[in-house]
């Protein structure tokens, strides 16, 4: 619960002076993500730079330092019956707000309740010049200057150290119910998409082990009426199921195999690779655990209108992210240069060439 910004700036300036790259760490719960980094690099720890800076429930806006644990944020929001609508996954007690934005991690409600990238209103960031900058703001609409805040989503800290984040938050729904039915993958994907095209209070749709799970959230009357209309078996202890899906605690995720994440057209028909599948986000996010070849999977993802990345396990010394087109790669390199000319932040974490 302290403002460590000056200390962090000093650390960056010193690193710049000594040309010593830094490893940005928050709660350390996402160390498994991205490419393997050189653990001998000095750590730039955001963990102590923590605490809620301001929270105005009526404005639906919260600002907190990057090192603030998600648990702390969610507790503060719950007091006002509000929530982080993007349902950020927690891969440990320590998961922080800064890490959530840097990895652009959102939970099962993402297609309907939006992503962390969508809900970000503004950030503070230390760039490679050791300047502590402010972008965006604390209001819903702000088109002054380039959107540097959302640019950070998925950058894995390669453009600078996020020190503070302002977010739009939302009220918790009045009621939630989860319906389960038996069905095979292809049919499940088509039902998910058909359901999503209806103006009904659907907020999650997942397929696992030949079971389709659909979550409804909103006004009591609307949830009940839709549940009656759509039918299906009511899932007991549904909150626990969605939480375990979000935090990857379901049995599916406890595997020795590498875990791959496909982000694709929600209606895509994909070839069955040998291994396990879990479909989330109404078809738009598909987890695959298996030993297929990365290059082959890139082709499959591309044909399905999307991308694939190695999420957990496997060989993290090579590339783990879907390879960008040469033109996009050039832009990313130039942007890296624009923010961090000396390559101080998280070298090699996102791509081998960055």
């Amino acid at each position: 619960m302290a403002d460590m910004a000056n200390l962090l700036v000093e650390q960056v300036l010193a690193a710049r002076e000594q040309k010593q790259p830094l490893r940005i760490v928050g709660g350390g719960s996402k160390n498994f993500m991205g490419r393997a980094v050189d653990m001998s690099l000095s750590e730039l720890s955001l963990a102590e730079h923590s605490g809620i800076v301001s929270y105005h429930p009526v404005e639906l806006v919260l600002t907190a330092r990057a090192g603030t644990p998600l648990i702390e944020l969610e507790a503060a929001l719950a007091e006002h019956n509000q929530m982080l609508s993007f349902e950020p996954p927690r891969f440990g007690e320590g998961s922080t707000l800064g890490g959530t934005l840097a990895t652009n991690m959102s939970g099962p409600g993402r297609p309907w309740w939006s992503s962390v990238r969508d809900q970000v209103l503004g950030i503070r960031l230390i760039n490679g010049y050791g300047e502590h900058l402010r972008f965006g703001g604390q209001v819903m609409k702000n088109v002054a200057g380039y959107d540097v805040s959302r640019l950070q989503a998925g950058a894995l800290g390669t453009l600078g150290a996020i020190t503070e984040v302002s977010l739009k938050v939302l009220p918790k729904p009045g009621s939630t119910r989860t319906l389960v039915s038996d069905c095979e993958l292809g049919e499940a994907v088509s039902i998910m998409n058909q359901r999503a095209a209806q103006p009904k209070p659907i907020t999650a749709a997942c397929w696992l082990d030949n079971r389709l799970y659909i979550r409804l959230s909103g006004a009591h009357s609307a949830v009940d009426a839709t549940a009656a209309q759509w039918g299906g078996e009511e899932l007991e202890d549904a909150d626990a199921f969605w939480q375990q899906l979000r935090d990857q605690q379901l049995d599916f995720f406890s595997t020795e195999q590498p875990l791959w994440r496909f982000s694709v057209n929600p209606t895509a028909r994909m070839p069955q690779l040998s291994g396990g599948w879990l479909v989330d986000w109404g078809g738009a996010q598909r987890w695959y655990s298996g030993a297929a070849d990365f290059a082959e999977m890139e082709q499959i993802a591309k044909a399905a209108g999307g991308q694939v990345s190695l999420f957990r396990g496997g060989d993290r010394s090579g590339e783990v992210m879907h390879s960008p087109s040469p033109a996009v790669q050039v832009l990313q390199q130039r942007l890296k240069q624009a923010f961090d000319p000396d390559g101080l932040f998280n070298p090699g974490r996102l791509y081998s060439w960055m």
Partner: protein
Amino acid sequence: MSNAGKRVDREVLAQRFRQFIDPEYVISDDETLKPYECDGLSVYCEQPMLVVLPETVEQAQQVLRICHQEGVPVVARGAGTGLCAGAMPHPEGVVLSMAKFDRILEIDTLARAARVQPGVRNLAISEVAGKNGLYYGPDPSSQIACTIGGNVAENSGGVHCLKYGLTVHNLLSVDLLTVEGERLTLGSEGLDCYGMDLMALMTGSEGLLGIVTEVRVKLLPKPEVAQVVMAGFDSVQTAGDAVGAIIAEGIIPGGLEMMDGHAIVAAEAFAKAGYPTEAQALLLCEVDGTSEEVHEHIDAVESLFKRLGATSVRTSHNEEERARLWQGRKSAFPAVGRISPDYYCMDGTIPRGQLAHVLTEMDRKSQECGLRVANVFHAGDGNLHPLILFDANVPGELEKTEAFGAWILELCVEVGGCITGEHGVGVEKIRQMPAQFNDSEIEQFHRIKAAFDPAGTLNPGKGIPTLRQCQEYRSLDKDIEPNAGAAAQLHDHGQGGHHHG
């Protein structure tokens, strides 16, 4: 960020373009160039060297390559409805009109997405998707005319942003041409991509980073029902509190609009919507969703308004009544245009809790400088549109108006808001950028620009001020009135000062 220096002969360049573009679509004569000299903010005018209207991406690509080679500035243009002079031409540059790219390429009903060319009108997407019960969310008030390419460039909003987001929230992918004429795609058919979010960076970049050639947007299912509650209040403060109370109740309205006394009177006289003209503030709260949900929430909103001291409450019970209640709000700008020879529309955003303070201060300043202000407010998301009423034929009044406008934007920043919520910076608000950003932040913006456009030929002079301008503005602020240059321009061209939003 200056454009490259060498002067290029207009006719020579036109001839080169005519080799691969229909000669009719390469405009080089003064008379035909005239309509392109400004966008929706007609105070700022400039005649371009040339206008080209390519019909294929390959042609646009070729235009960019030639301009890049010759160091000629390129200003992209959609429908020209923008309100910040973001599409104002460069005198030695080419206007790249995307008007011919007007085809909806695909409506993917099952995946709820549409693939469209950049010159497709915003409303046209919803009209076509509507046949399948879907629509495109963002609805700027110019939606009948404005194009999706322009919406991406400006990150356009509308009245439904609180619930459905801005353009940036409703895009899946964007195809671009870089300043060098390189083609690339940002985003995908999936929801999130890996690596830094370049599509978000591109959205709202005002044509400074690239030229949009194709867009894949999300489509939403049309709500079963939408109903609107109108409530009059005897003070702006009470109405503002009522907005907060709705949110605190856990209701996110589809639209939540406020008008002040001046705007109510003007709108009622114009549209006869049945607004309470004695009220000091009016709220329009639209709730949409399933019929059960709307029923539940409309009851809650009505009783909340009554409990919080609304002087009148009315609810729409059919589509006709709903349209009529909205009619006044939607015609607020032309309505104000009728009670004043000219008006100037501002676009600040503030934290909602600051509304009463900001309006009180604005009222004080309005009396001080003798200019009336009517306020329309996207109350849900804090986006304020003060309309300053003035008469451009009275010498000095436009200058006074612009100074007042600048003061309002700076007040927005002071209370924790920003200088533009949805209209963009363009030329118009470049002067207020230093109020929101310090020199290091501005410099970071320039480095981003240089990553995409090292020579600075894409829409030069817009969006981000140079550091020298920042210094000049700050020292000017200390003594004299701002924007005298723009005012001089206005009189040179003999333009009216009307602004439509």
